[in-house]
Structures are given as structure tokens and as C-alpha cells.
């Protein structure tokens, strides 16, 4: 086994992007085939890694329990009395990141498949897509905070251009709004990183470090430093550690997104081209959840416990509010965007419970939502490609016009609303069990939050089924008349090939959740123990 497998996985897209630069602009088709080849190769690679991944590799705060580790010194800057700047190229995977890496590779392939008909400057499009791909893989693997931040920010640039150039009518507004929201969160995150850097030393060398794993161990904090738990420093009357937690949480919560920081999401989703919506919902939102678990909780466990009630409340508000707003939408893509807000609320509720069930459920929900939302956005894209309209009230009786498409939509809707037998059910049930047990296990969350979460499932059933009824059943009646009914052809073989694996995966994980739970279990246990000890 190649020891640098993970590095290859991350930088493969960069090689592809360089290759695309060399290919002359006249060969339009070459780009998408290079991209597809890269995507498939990554999927095979990450699939292989998933298979090789040892379920006992808990990771979290111990480097020796990480797998596929690459750890080499990168930047060593001597800065006089500020000491030596120690930045490592440090990557590795554990149970938190392994499923998300596989998910990212899968969603990327779907996104590339969905970009098959991109005509407008294909070269730029696929080059940007590859850079985005690299950044995403890097974010899920980085274990050095500096490296993490670089990949995290690097995601923004290609997305800005992908939304801004290839997007819909209000694309410029959506692109800059998305960028500003995320940058706002991450710039302040940078300040916390600097603070952590000065508070933590590497026990081996004694130098300050950006190593996340060192930041998780209270023994590595310099006595009296800003973020040291014993020093109890304050800034503007807020304890420093709580402040650090809040700032990092907001940075990631913008990505998740939580209510009320979610307003960039409907705009970005609606204006983005279909493949980018798929990536946004399938991968980018998971970065937020992953960041909360990997960074906020692991580095500031005390502050996280202290804020549990608020986190739970934010989760519940996101679930209910997202679902209610989704119910009121007249645009199919907007409805799905708000359903994402609602479903990601479960992730927050799950992690806020600080129980093994809740955390595992949250992680499972992220994975499940990853490909289900990708599937949903892909389905919307299929409709939009044909008639360039997404209004829910502009369609009726699609089932008779597009039977195969309707089957796909029905399965995806049922899977998303949490029907037993599909993956979303497992995730949501685990989250609710976790939230319900929290009162007796650690007393952090009141029971009504779990009940409110179940109301969210009910609401999601309402908006999904109602939409199904409005658009697909009854006599065919279309806003565009016969022109539309001719344009609305059933799912093509390419679209079928993309859809089937996702729906099969949703079913497989729903019927046999151990496929994922086995790999994440050890890490979840280690994380919960780290946080609650």
C-alpha cells in the first residue's frame, strides 16, 4: 500500500487541472473526459481507502490512531522573539473524515456527470471544478489548523466564479453574498487560530504549533496563556475559551447553515448551476458540520458542553423554521434548499446531545443528506434543463409524461422525508434518540427538543408529499403548453446511470447501516469521551 495515498487523493485534481491547461481550448470534449477520469479515479481510490480503513482507528486526538497519515514539516519561519513558526503538512483520516471523503468523491463524480452539457468556456469551468475538488478533499484530511484554513478558504474562490459565471439571473449577487458570509466567519476564525497558536506548544519541540491534535490536549497549553483553561482569561467580559468556541462555531455554522445565518443558502442554491448546487448541498454543508465536530468540540470541549442547550435550540429552530419555510416555497429548487436547512438542523441537534447515539446519528445524517440532497438537486436540474422553469405550480401531472423521472423523484422524496428503510431515517432516529436520552445521560438537553425534532420530520413529510402531489399527480397541465410537453422527455440513460447508484446507496445504508456505522463508531466514542470527560 502506498503510504501517500491520501496525498495522491487530494492532489490528483490539481494534476488534472494542470493537464487541462495544456490541452488547447479547441478540444471542448477533452476537458470533461479528463474531469470524469479524475473523478472516477478518486472514487476508486477513496473507495479502496474506505475498504482498507481499519474500524478501530479512532483518531480524534491521537496521531497514532489516524490512518493514511502524512506528516512532514512544511513552513519553518524564525520570527525572533515570537519564536519559530511551526507549520506542518499533516494529513490523516479517522472515522469522522473517512466517510465524508468517500462521499465527496462520489458527489464529485455526480457533479461532473451533471456538468456534461456545459458549453460556456468549458476549460475554465472544469479547471475551477478540479481546484474545488482538491480543496474539499484537503479540508476533510487536514490535521494542521493552518493547512485546514488554507484548504477551507481555497474552496471559496472556485465557488465564487462557478456561481458567478455559470449561474442564473442574479448570479453576481448570490456569488458575492456567499463569499462575504463565509469570509466574515473565517477571518475571525483566523484570529482564534492565532490565539490558539500562542497558547499551545508542541510537547516534543517546545515550539508553538498549529497542530490540531496538540490543541486538543489540555496539557499542551502554556500556563497563563490566552486559551489555557486554567488561566481563565477574559476579553470584553466573556471567558476566552467560550469566546474562541463561539467565533469558531459561527464560522462553521454559517456553512452548515443554521438559522439565522442561512440566508446566503437559498440565493446561492437557486442561482448556482445544477452541478454546483449538488456540490454545495452534498459537500460544502458537511464541511460546516465536520468543522464543528473536529475543531469546535475537540479543541473547546468545556465551552461546547457549556453551550449545549443553545446549540440544541439552534438545531431545533433550524429544523422547524427550515421546514416551515420550505412548505411555503413556490420554486422547487428553493424548497429543496430550505429542506437542507431543516435536515442540517438535525446534525446540530445530534451533536448538541453529547451522546454517542446523537453524534453517530449526526454524522450518519450528514452522509445520508450528502447524496440525497445531491440526488434532489440533480432531479431539479433535469427538469430545469428541459424547460428552464422550476415553479412548483407550473407543472401538473408529470407522472404521465415522465414516468421514470417520477419514480426517481418519489424515491428521493420518500428517502429524504425519513421513511424507514432509507438512510435519512437512520440518521434522524439516532439523533432523536440521542437528544431524548441526553436529559437522563448528561442532563444537557431537555426532552422537548427531541419532540420538536420529530415534529420536523412530520413537517418534512408534509412538504415533500404535498409537492409530489402538486407536481406529479393528476392530469398533465403545464404552464408552457405543448412546447413543454414535447420538451419534457423522460430521464436519459446518462441521467439514469447517475441517479440509480445514489438511490441504491440510500436504500443500502437504510437497510444495513453498519456499512457506515462500523467505520465511524470508534471515532464517535473517542470524540464523546474527549468532550464529556
Amino acid at each position: 500500500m502506498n503510504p501517500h495515498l491520501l496525498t495522491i487523493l487530494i492532489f490528483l485534481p490539481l494534476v488534472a487541472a494542470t493537464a487541462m491547461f495544456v490541452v488547447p481550448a479547441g478540444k471542448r470534449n477533452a476537458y470533461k473526459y479528463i474531469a470524469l477520469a479524475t473523478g472516477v479515479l478518486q472514487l476508486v481510490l477513496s473507495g479502496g481507502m474506505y475498504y482498507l480503513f481499519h474500524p478501530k482507528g479512532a483518531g480524534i486526538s491521537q496521531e497514532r490512531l489516524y490512518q493514511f497519515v502524512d506528516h512532514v514539516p512544511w513552513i519553518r519561519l524564525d520570527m525572533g522573539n515570537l519564536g519559530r513558526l511551526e507549520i506542518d503538512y499533516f494529513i490523516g483520516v479517522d472515522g469522522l473524515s473517512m466517510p465524508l471523503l468517500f462521499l465527496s468523491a462520489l458527489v464529485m463524480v455526480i457533479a461532473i456527470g451533471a456538468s456534461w452539457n456545459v458549453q460556456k468556456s468549458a476549460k475554465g469551468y472544469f479547471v475551477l471544478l478540479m481546484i474545488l475538488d482538491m480543496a474539499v478533499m484537503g479540508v476533510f484530511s487536514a490535521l494542521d489548523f493552518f493547512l485546514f484554513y488554507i484548504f477551507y478558504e481555497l474552496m471559496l474562490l472556485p465557488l465564487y466564479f462557478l456561481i458567478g459565471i455559470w449561474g442564473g439571473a442574479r448570479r453576481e449577487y448570490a456569488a458575492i453574498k456567499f463569499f462575504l458570509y463565509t469570509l466574515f466567519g473565517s477571518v475571525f476564525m483566523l484570529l482564534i487560530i492565532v490565539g490558539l497558536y500562542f497558547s499551545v506548544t508542541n510537547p516534543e519541540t517546545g515550539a508553538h504549533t498549529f497542530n490540531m491534535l496538540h490543541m486538543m490536549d489540555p496539557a499542551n497549553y502554556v500556563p497563563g496563556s490566552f486559551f489555557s483553561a486554567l488561566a481563565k482569561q477574559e476579553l470584553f467580559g466573556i471567558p476566552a475559551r467560550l469566546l474562541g468556541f463561539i467565533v469558531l462555531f459561527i464560522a462553521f455554522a454559517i456553512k452548515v447553515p443554521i438559522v439565522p445565518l442561512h440566508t446566503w443558502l437559498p440565493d446561492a442554491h437557486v442561482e448556482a448551476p445544477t452541478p454546483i448546487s449538488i456540490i454545495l448541498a452534498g459537500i460544502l454543508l458537511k464541511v460546516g458540520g465536520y468543522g464543528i465536530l473536529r475543531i469546535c468540540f475537540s479543541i473547546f470541549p468545556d465551552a461546547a458542553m457549556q453551550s449545549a442547550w443553545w446549540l440544541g435550540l439552534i438545531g431545533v429552530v433550524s429544523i422547524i423554521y427550515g421546514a416551515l419555510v420550505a412548505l411555503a416555497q413556490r420554486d422547487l429548487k428553493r424548497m429543496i434548499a430550505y429542506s437542507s436547512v431543516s435536515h442540517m438542523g438535525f446534525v446540530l441537534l445530534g451533536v448538541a446531545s453529547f451522546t454517542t447515539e446523537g453524534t453517530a446519528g449526526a454524522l450518519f445524517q450528514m452522509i445520508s443528506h450528502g447524496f440525497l440532497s445531491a440526488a434532489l438537486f440533480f432531479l431539479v436540474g433535469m427538469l430545469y434543463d428541459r424547460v428552464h422553469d422550476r415553479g412548483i405550480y407550473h407543472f401538473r401531472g408529470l407522472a404521465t409524461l415522465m414516468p421514470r423521472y417520477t419514480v426517481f423523484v418519489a424515491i428521493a422524496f420518500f428517502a429524504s422525508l425519513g421513511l424507514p428503510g432509507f438512510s435519512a431515517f437512520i440518521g434522524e432516529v439516532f439523533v432523536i434518540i440521542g437528544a431524548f436520552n441526553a436529559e437522563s445521560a448528561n442532563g444537557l438537553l431537555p426532552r422537548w427538543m427531541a419532540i420538536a425534532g420529530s415534529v420536523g420530520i412530520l413537517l418534512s413529510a408534509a412538504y415533500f408529499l404535498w409537492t409530489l402531489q402538486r407536481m406529479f399527480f393528476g392530469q398533465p397541465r403545464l404552464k408552457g403548453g405543448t412546447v413543454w410537453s414535447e420538451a419534457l422527455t423522460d430521464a436519459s440513460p446518462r441521467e439514469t446511470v447517475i441517479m440509480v447508484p445514489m438511490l441504491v446507496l440510500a436504500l443500502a445504508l437504510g437497510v444495513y447501516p453498519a456499512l457506515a456505522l462500523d467505520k465511524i463508531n470508534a471515532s464517535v466514542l473517542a470524540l464523546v469521551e474527549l468532550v464529556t470527560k
Partner: protein
Amino acid sequence: MTSQLPDISERLDHIVSGLPALAPELVLIAAFVASILTGLFVDRLWRHATFTVALIGITLSAVCSSFQLAAPDADGVLFGMVATDVFSQYMRILIAIVGLLFACFVQASPDFGAHRKKTGDLYPILLAVQIGLNLMALASNWLLTFIAIEMVSIGSYLMVGYLAKDSRQTEAAMKYVLFGAVCSAVMLYGMSLLYGFTGNLDYTSAQHIQGLTGASPLLVTIALLFVFTGIGFKLTFVPFHFWTPDVYQGAPTPVTAFLSTAPKIAGIALLANILYAWPPDSFAYQHLRLLLVAAAAVTMLWGNLAALRQTDVKRMMAYSSIGHTGFLMMAVLAYSAQDHTILLYYLAVYSLMNMGVFMLTGYIESRTGAVDVRQYHGLGRAMPLALVCFTLIMISLTGIPPTSGFVAKLLVFTAVFHDWQTTGDIGMVVLLIVGALTTVISLFFYFKIPLHAFLKTAESPSEIKPLRHSILWLAVLLTVAVWLLGVFPDWLVG
């Protein structure tokens, strides 16, 4: 004669013994004289003669400075008027690099080539300004500081008005001269007050510091304010920035590039020298620090907020450079005398980015005539390489990884945080927060360039004139450097 000047031979010996430390300036003086001569006589035969002389002169001066890096500090050169430490050597090298870039930029700029005055007279001015800039970075005496600043100013006035193509350029030059003259006068007045309090013009001397401590706090504050009017004028921090947008917009693009970079480097060096000559517990230092913290915060906010409303690219970049001045001041405040890595890195990166941006602005302007971002529509397709580089530099200016602009910002944040931890000065926290906030604000206007160039399409394809690509390739080189130094900052600092 000997009775009137009993120690004249000793004094002469002292001056001569100090000259090797000033070798870079001597080289520049020689090049200055040579360039005037070539401008008069040789340019007719070979039109690149003056350019070549200037290039050689600046390069040689940089080489001289780099030799002095290894040598120990020369003490008390010219009766202590000049302090040559490692920091000022690096400053000289950096200023020389900017001067070289400027010379190449001018040479490639069609505006200068087509003008009837040609460039023969510009290079001697450049060399003279270089001398002034070097002295600004070296001076440890108020009087020498004044002379250096004036030398730079007078040269800059000439540069701004060099082409005087239309009334706007003439207006810019005129404004610059008037504001400059007033600021210099005020600064000189402030210096005279300081001299009155202390009886000494060497601001590093103990006598000077004692004198300041002894004088009335109100008067010292007023005197310092006056002095900093002059320095602020060169550095363009708020509230002495008001001349910048008009002058930057009106001046020929290469000159704008130079003015927004080189005098700032020298000014920051001067500021650092003054600030760290005084002991931290002295009253004057604490007062000055308070003033500078406030000025830095306001400068960052004002520069970035005002840039939001601009649509003229050069004007927008003028405000952006004001914003960066605020950031640099923050770096100076957090910098400590033994350790100049962070400040140097920021200055070097800023110079590269700024020169790169203006080169691209100039290139795009000469090819399409576009000066307003709204005229950039669709240029991303027409001139992909130039606009991609432009965008890449904008990313770095905003401070987004993995660029050197990001590393520079991170290092400054690091230094400021450390300073706050050791001194407990709450002003540093304010600076940190303002610095972070303005980074977000700056994204908005820096990304106007890619927004208009790539996201919007032109109603009518703009006419593109042919032009030699030399300047574009230079800008590409700078872009690559800006990105590589972001991924491998050790290459610069090591």
C-alpha cells in the same frame, strides 16, 4: 584657519571613514550625474542609454547594500545623523527593487514612449528620489529626515506632472505640490518646536528623550502632531490621505505604482525607527503610540470603506493602498526592534502586489482604454492572461490563502496578538478586530475586478490595440512570485 576650526582634520577623517556605509547612495549619486549626461548626449544615438544607466545604478546600489548586510553596523556615521542597521539595509534593497520595477514599467509604457519629452529626464529624477528614499530609511536626525522627505517630495511632484497630458494630470500635480508644501512647512515647524524642547535634533539621543520628558505634555503632543503631518503625508494615513485619490488617479500609471509603493516603504521604515528609538515607558512614546493606534484603525476603516464606492480602478487602488497603510502601521506598532521579519515580509509582498496591480492596470488601459471597472466588462474573455493575473493578485491583496498576502496578514495578526498578550494593551485587540473586519470589506471592492471582467459580458466587444507584451510578462512574473511566496514563505524569510 586652524584656530577657527581646530578639529577640522579629525572631522574630515570622521566623514571619510563613514562614507563606505553610504556606498549605495554614492553609487546612486554617480548614476544620477551619469544619467543626466547620457540623457543630454547619448540618448540621441542609442535611445535606451539613460534607462540602462539607471538600471545599472540602482542594481549596483542594491548590491552594495547587500554586501553591507554581512558587515557589522557602522556606528555614528556622519556624526550620528545616519544609522545603518540590518533593517535599513533590507529597506534599501527593497526600495531598489521597486525602483527597478518602476524603470521597466516606464520603459514599456507607450504613454511615455510617445510623449515628446521622452523618458530621458525621468530616470535622473528617479535616481534622485531613490537617494531621498534611502536617506529616509537611514536617518536618525530630524533635519536629515526633513531633507530626505523634501527630496522625495520634489522628485515626486515632477514625476506626477511629467506627462501633463490633460488638465486632470496638471491638476493632480498642482494639488500634490500645494498639499505637500503645506505639510512640509508644518512638519518643519514641529521639528523646530522639538528642537526647542530638547536642544538636540538626533531623536535617538538620550538628551532628546530626556528633553521630551521634561517638556509640557501638551506642547510635546502638538509638536509631534505637526511632525507627523509631514510623515503622514508621505505615508498617506488618515487624516493626511486626502490628496491620494486625486493624485493617484491623475498621475501616469507607472508613477502611481511607484508613489504608492516606494515612499510608503521608506515612510514605514522612518516610523519604525522613530518609534523604537524611544524607550517604551517614556511619555512621548506612549503618546505617539496612542496616536498611531487610533490612526491605524481609522486608516484601515476609512481606506477600505471609501474604496467600496469607487469605480475608477486607479482611484480604487489609491484607497486600497490607504487601507494597507493602516495595516502596515499595525505591523509597525507590533514590531519590536530586534525583529523585523514580519514587517519586511509584509512590505516586500505589498510592493510586489501593488506594482503588479498597477502594471496590469496600465497594460489594460493602454490596450483598451478602460480605466473604469464598468469598462472591464467581458475583458476576461478578450485578455484572459492579464485578467487572470489581475484576479490572482486581488486575491492576495484581500488576504485569502494560499497567497503571500494571506501569510503577511497572518504574520501581522500573530505579532499584534503577541504584543497584546505581553503588554495587555486593549488598543491592540481593537486593531485585530478592525483588521479582520476590513479584510471582509476589502473583498467587496477587490472582487469588483473579476466581477466585471468575468461575470459580466460586454454589450459590444471592445477594440483592443496591439501592444508589446513585455509589461504583461513582468506582471505574470510578479503574480507567480506572490503565489509562490504564499506557499513557501521560507524562501523570502529564510
